[in-house]
């Protein structure tokens, strides 16, 4: 999303789904995983919309959908590519929209070579470093872009700007062919790239019969254009793949071609799994980001603030104010200690050099480099791919702090875990010191969640926590306080940031809880000029929008994209104006970032000249008399910029974009069909087989994504692809009745009794082939482990015909673990740790396995079974490096 449109978040909001004429739910099981949000899909259906669900299994979403398309897990790009090909070959794209708002007409540089030319690789691939040099991907410019020299040698930057535009260095001055005829223009490059993704190829790759494919294609085309819009809904069904980001890219391209972006009933709805997972990427407890999708300083590149800014500041669009955002953050972090002289304390920030995501940390624990670990409201022992790897890491720590509601698997691993049961670990040998701290529930603390539609909503404390139970705000505030006290007298330079960090929050209540509102105010930011005669009588005044942030240290903001959440000193996230008393957009309930916009890029809901595309799909338009943009939502645009504004190259960054550029975070303001930057594994999505697939890649010589991150080592060996030892595909998913790794549901009687046992869903044909008995047990085995599950033989899982062979798929809900009331084996124990190169998300939705009737062995026999099965599959060879496949 970030690379295509400029922001890495859902582009619309759930209520808007009701306006869609066609809703495609793919990579999501919305009725089960977001049931209350699903009411808006039902609303659309009641108004006559077509609801299509594309999923390996027939689920509760499919039950009420108009069409269910069973698809082979891991082949979504082939299917979506087929749809793009259908649109391009038939010229069904929304031409006026595409020419004006996307980079379809921009010419690509000559030395770009497509996967069609290099049989699965783009130009610039370095097999040793397993990365691309993006020099050959650049777009053709009439004159070299300001700032960095044209085509500078640059490793493809990762998806750094989750919410920012592609990395800077370009502006909109391209060689273009608005007629889209020139073979080098993006439109034609796209056409050639997807030419082979024909309906026959889709059937051969995804197992989707041609008639089903055409039905989807026709529905989408019929429901796009000026009068009608279609929406896409996805979730981890797309992100949990080694090419996850490219899945979303494909959908972005399709939605841009059909002209559905930025329009009511259109867009791409990213459904997130946790209450504030969007919040935890906006204010990231992530290794590579600072709040507001600013990148963490990279060792060697960002040696000082000026280098950091110059390397990333955008030539046009709102990334052009990167300096104001980073300086305001530093002022929030260090307060008065941050002065222009010391680069506002830029050097007190630690630097990253490479991938430090959770798998690197777990391997660090196993190798002994990582000694201390905090687990806060998460359950990696069963919730993260390759549970055994996680538990082996936990067992090798010096100390571990777990904060949760009860003794979850990640806190109990040292006395109760599959490894203790199989003898691979002994309690007495595990040296990890464990602190299990009771955590407060959402009813026992004030705070805000950011939901899946970028909406900050405040939850008020209802009761005081009891006993030792404390909120995580309390825990980190007091931990910081104690550490600062202990280091107060230190003279060691590394302790300077610890002393300088602003930590003086007011506390309240019987447990000295730090004020969450004070923290939110800091996140919002202040203008720091002590202006006595200002209406607020001087002192720190909350800023009302990120446009007020300055680069001279006169403003602070803990997270620039959240600036405005405390506008006028009011906690906008706690606004509760009932939906019934305001418009269906409901702008006065909670606060959505950025600047309370509910549909992003909504400039595109109007023609280039500013008038709505159609009366039916009116949303934001130019009001000539008032001289500004108006409509049902906050315009995602410079309010007073005329639609015919040509773009002022010398004005402030956002003025350099023309009045017809809806994607204001992008350098060129355009939706990127072709993404020369921002993605590590290619400017265009390409079908690669999952890391573990029983099927050879029908399109290219390259089997799987060449840039996928693999860790070939003990406990993480991969199933060899196209191998008789692991002939079946399995995918993991959730059920309505449980929550992720079960920590918040398997301890509750009322939820556990609804889904008491771990089960696997298999088709009658597979049950016959492997004589699995309905209601009895089956053992599922991969190179990592073997688990047992009750068998659910059902027609809802269909074997797929891929040309002459049949692929069987097995469904595994992954909620279970060995603690709580409803206990069972963890499906994540089967999965390898194999990551997407852009965002390091493991491939959890597809892998290969074998299945046999009966329960799994207990004790050491389990390890033997797994190892014997693996060596038989490798016919005796030692574990091989999976990157050779």
């Amino acid at each position, binding site marked *: 999303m970030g690379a295509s449109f400029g922001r890495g978040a859902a582009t619309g909001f759930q*209520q808007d789904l009701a306006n869609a004429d066609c809703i495609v739910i793919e990579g999501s099981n919305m009725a089960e995983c977001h*049931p209350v949000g699903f009411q808006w899909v039902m609303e659309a259906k009641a108004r006559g919309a077509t609801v299509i669900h594309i999923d390996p299994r027939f689920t509760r979403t499919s039950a009420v959908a108009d069409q269910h398309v069973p698809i082979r897990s891991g082949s979504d790009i082939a299917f979506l590519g087929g749809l793009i090909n259908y649109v391009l070959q038939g010229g069904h794209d929304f031409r006026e929209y595409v020419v004006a708002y996307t980079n379809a007409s921009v010419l690509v540089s000559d030395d770009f070579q497509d996967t069609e030319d290099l049989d699965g690789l783009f130009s610039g691939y370095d097999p040793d470093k397993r990365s691309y040099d993006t020099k050959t991907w650049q777009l053709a410019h009439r004159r070299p872009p300001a700032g960095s020299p044209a085509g500078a040698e640059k490793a493809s930057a990762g998806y750094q700007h989750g919410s920012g535009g592609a990395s800077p260095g370009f502006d909109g001055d391209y060689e273009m062919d608005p007629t889209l005829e020139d073979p080098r223009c993006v439109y034609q490059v796209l056409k050639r790239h997807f030419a082979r993704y024909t309906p026959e190829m889709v059937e051969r790759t995804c197992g989707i019969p041609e008639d089903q494919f055409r039905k989807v294609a026709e529905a989408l085309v019929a429901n796009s254009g000026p009068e009608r819009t279609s929406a896409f809904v996805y979730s981890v069904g797309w992100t949990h793949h080694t090419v996850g980001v490219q899945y979303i890219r494909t959908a972005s391209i399709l939605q841009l071609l059909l002209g559905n972006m930025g329009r009511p009933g259109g867009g791409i709805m990213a459904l997130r799994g946790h209450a504030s*997972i969007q919040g935890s990427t906006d204010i990231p407890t992530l290794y590579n980001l600072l709040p507001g999708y600013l990148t963490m300083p990279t060792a060697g590149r960002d040696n000082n603030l000026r280098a950091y800014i110059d390397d990333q500041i955008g030539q046009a669009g709102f990334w052009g104010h990167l300096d104001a955002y980073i300086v305001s953050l530093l002022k929030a972090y260090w307060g008065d200690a941050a002065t222009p002289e010391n680069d506002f304390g830029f050097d007190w920030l630690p630097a990253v050099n490479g991938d430090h995501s959770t798998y690197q940390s777990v391997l660090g624990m196993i190798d002994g480099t990582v000694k201390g*670990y905090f687990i806060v409201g998460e359950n990696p022992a069963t919730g993260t791919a390759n549970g055994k790897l996680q538990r082996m890491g936990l067992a090798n720590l010096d100390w571990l702090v777990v904060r949760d509601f009860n003794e979850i698997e990640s806190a109990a691993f040292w006395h109760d875990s599959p490894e203790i049961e199989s003898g691979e670990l002994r309690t007495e040998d595990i040296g990890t010191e464990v602190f299990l701290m009771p955590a407060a529930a959402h009813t026992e603390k004030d705070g805000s969640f950011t939901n899946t539609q970028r909406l900050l*909503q405040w939850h008020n404390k*209802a009761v005081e926590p009891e006993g030792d139970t404390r909120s995580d705000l309390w825990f980190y505030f007091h931990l910081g306080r104690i550490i600062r006290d202990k280091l107060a007298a230190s003279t060691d330079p590394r302790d300077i940031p610890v002393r300088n960090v602003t930590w003086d929050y007011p506390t309240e209540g019987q447990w000295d809880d730090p004020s969450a509102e004070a923290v939110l105010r800091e996140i919002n930011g202040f203008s720091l000029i002590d202006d006595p005669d200002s209406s607020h009588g001087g002192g720190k005044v909350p800023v009302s929008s990120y446009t007020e942030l300055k680069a001279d240290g006169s403003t602070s903001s803990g997270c620039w994209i959240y600036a405005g959440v405390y506008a006028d000193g009011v906690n906008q996230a706690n606004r509760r104006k009932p939906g019934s008393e305001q418009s269906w957009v409901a702008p006065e309930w909670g606060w959505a970032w950025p600047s309370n916009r509910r549909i992003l890029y909504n400039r595109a809901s109007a023609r280039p000249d500013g008038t709505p595309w159609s009366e039916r799909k009116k949303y934001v338009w130019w009001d000539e008399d008032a001289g500004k943009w108006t409509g049902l939502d906050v315009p995602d645009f410079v309010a007073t910029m005329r639609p015919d504004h040509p773009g002022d190259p010398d004005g402030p960054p956002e003025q350099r974009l023309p009045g017809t550029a809806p994607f204001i975070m992008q350098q060129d303001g355009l939706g990127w069909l072709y993404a020369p930057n921002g993605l590590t594994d290619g400017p265009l999505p390409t079908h690669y087989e999952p890391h573990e697939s029983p099927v050879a890649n029908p399109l290219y010589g390259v089997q799987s994504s060449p840039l996928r991150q693999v860790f070939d080592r003990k406990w993480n060996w991969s199933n060899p692809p196209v191998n008789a030892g692991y002939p079946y595909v399995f995918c993991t998913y959730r059920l309505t009745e449980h929550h992720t790794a079960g920590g918040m549901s398997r301890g509750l009687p009322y939820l556990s009794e609804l889904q008491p046992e771990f089960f696997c869903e298999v088709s009658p044909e597979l049950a016959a082939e492997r004589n699995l008995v309905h209601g009895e047990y089956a053992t599922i085995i991969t190179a990592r482990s073997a688990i047992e599950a009750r068998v659910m033989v059902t027609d809802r899982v269909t074997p797929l015909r891929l040309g002459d062979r049949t692929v069987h798929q097995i469904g595994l809900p992954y909620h279970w673990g060995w603690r709580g009331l409803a206990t069972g084996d963890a499906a994540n124990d089967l999965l390898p740790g194999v990551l997407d190169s852009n965002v390091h998300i493991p491939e959890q939705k597809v892998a290969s396995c074998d299945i046999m009737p009966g329960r799994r062995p207990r004790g050491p026999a389990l390890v033997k079974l797994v190892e014997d099965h693996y060596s038989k599959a490798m016919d005796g060879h030692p574990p091989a490096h999976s990157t050779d496949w």
Partner: protein
Amino acid sequence: MKMRKLIASWPAVRQATNLADWRGMGRTVQSERSASLEPRTDTADSVVRSICPYCAVGCGQRVFVKGGKVTQIEGDPASPISRGRLCPKGSASKQLVTHGRLSKVRYRRPHGTEWEDLDLDTAMDMIADRVIKTRAETWQDVDENGDRLSRTMGIASLGGATLDNEENYLMKKLYTALGAIQIENQARI
């Protein structure tokens, strides 16, 4: 007098006196308790506007409190997103916050075989010491070609998606000030 009231309240007698329901199927057999029933939400001390802690739809919840205890959690009809509705997990929120909650710090010493008690303040102090010690032991000032790192690779953290924005902010700020960079959460799984 009490006897007369007792006799008069006997449903069999009320069947005679209230002929509209002489079959004894409605008001005449309604007990005192039934006649005075009222929903516990009406008699709550306070009702608090909250948001469901489970998934990212962000359903509105109303939390009813009486005597310092949560007595009911149900949907908030005012929410434009959820319109007062909840899923099975959201509906189980009362059980989530009241059932089987750990309320004491548990401590396991290295190689220990049992959980032990530990009071909260001591635990906090011990954790702070360990952070400082591990940080010192694994501090990296510069990398192999002299570029500034100023970080520790000895401490990692996991979690954040189920936490508030304010909590994520303090965590990131504290860890960054300490130079701990291996900070991750569910956005990555």
